[in-house]
């Protein structure tokens, strides 16, 4: 049963990611991005990491891509953007991406961690608890980090004119 679901959502994610890359209109590529991330969330569920699925949907699809769509709307130029750069560059890029993909695949398949996910998995509670015991320090640093980002982004994005 889950193999079918895995296949389905795998195809959905890959298809939409291709859509993101090759769609003529930026808004459409944003839309495909949403679908691909939705598929990805389903995959997280299939890997038995439901918490991550929800976080992915809540933060990634629910906030980051919203920002993307906002910016795409605000910036969107009426003319359709030329998709691709020069021919040779595309070719080399293709070859590079393809070979890197193969290498990555080979590495992943042959890495010691290629172990099936089975047996007693860490529950959501143990993970969350570890967040505040083992990884307390990064948790605190994170809020400082976000503070810095808030200030930074505001400084960057405010209208220089009437700021």
């Amino acid at each position: 049963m889950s193999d079918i679901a895995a296949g389905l959502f795998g195809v959905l994610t890959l298809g939409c990611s291709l859509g993101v890359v090759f769609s003529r209109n930026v808004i459409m590529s944003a839309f495909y991005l949403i679908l691909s991330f939705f598929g990805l969330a389903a995959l997280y569920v299939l890997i038995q990491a439901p918490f991550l699925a929800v976080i992915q949907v809540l933060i990634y699809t629910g906030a980051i891509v919203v920002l993307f769509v906002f910016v795409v709307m605000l910036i969107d130029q009426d003319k359709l953007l030329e998709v691709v750069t020069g021919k040779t560059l595309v070719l080399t890029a293709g070859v590079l991406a393809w070979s890197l993909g193969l290498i990555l695949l080979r590495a992943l398949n042959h890495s010691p961690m290629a172990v099936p996910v089975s047996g007693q998995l860490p529950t959501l509670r143990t993970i969350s608890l570890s967040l505040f015991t083992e990884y307390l320090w990064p948790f605190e640093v994170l809020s400082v980090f976000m503070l810095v980002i808030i200030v930074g982004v505001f400084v960057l994005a405010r209208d220089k004119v009437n700021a």
Partner: protein
Amino acid sequence: MENYIPVLLLLGFAIIVASSILVLSWWLGPKKPLAVKLSAYECGVNAEGSPHAPFASKFYLVAVMFLLVDVEAAFFFPWALVYKESLQLGPILFVALVIYVAIFALGLFYIIKKDCLRLR
């Protein structure tokens, strides 16, 4: 893993309902495309200028601030989940929360004070 199947089913049903409605209305509804009908509706006045709004950074700022604050807020969930259990471990999580929230509040204060969202 098993109890996500109903969610999938529900998704299926929802998609079926949505698409059926669209198909039904497309199939049943008359199709008489008139220039007037197809033009953008502006209280009867002819629309002019590009349909795309001039760039207003206000909306962008709202979205960015939402993103950053939402990401910080998201961390409260795992905290809340284990807070009740962790009480026997002592006030670690409380202290952690206080520090986290203090800096988080600082960020919020900055957003409000610096009028990131053009509220004034």
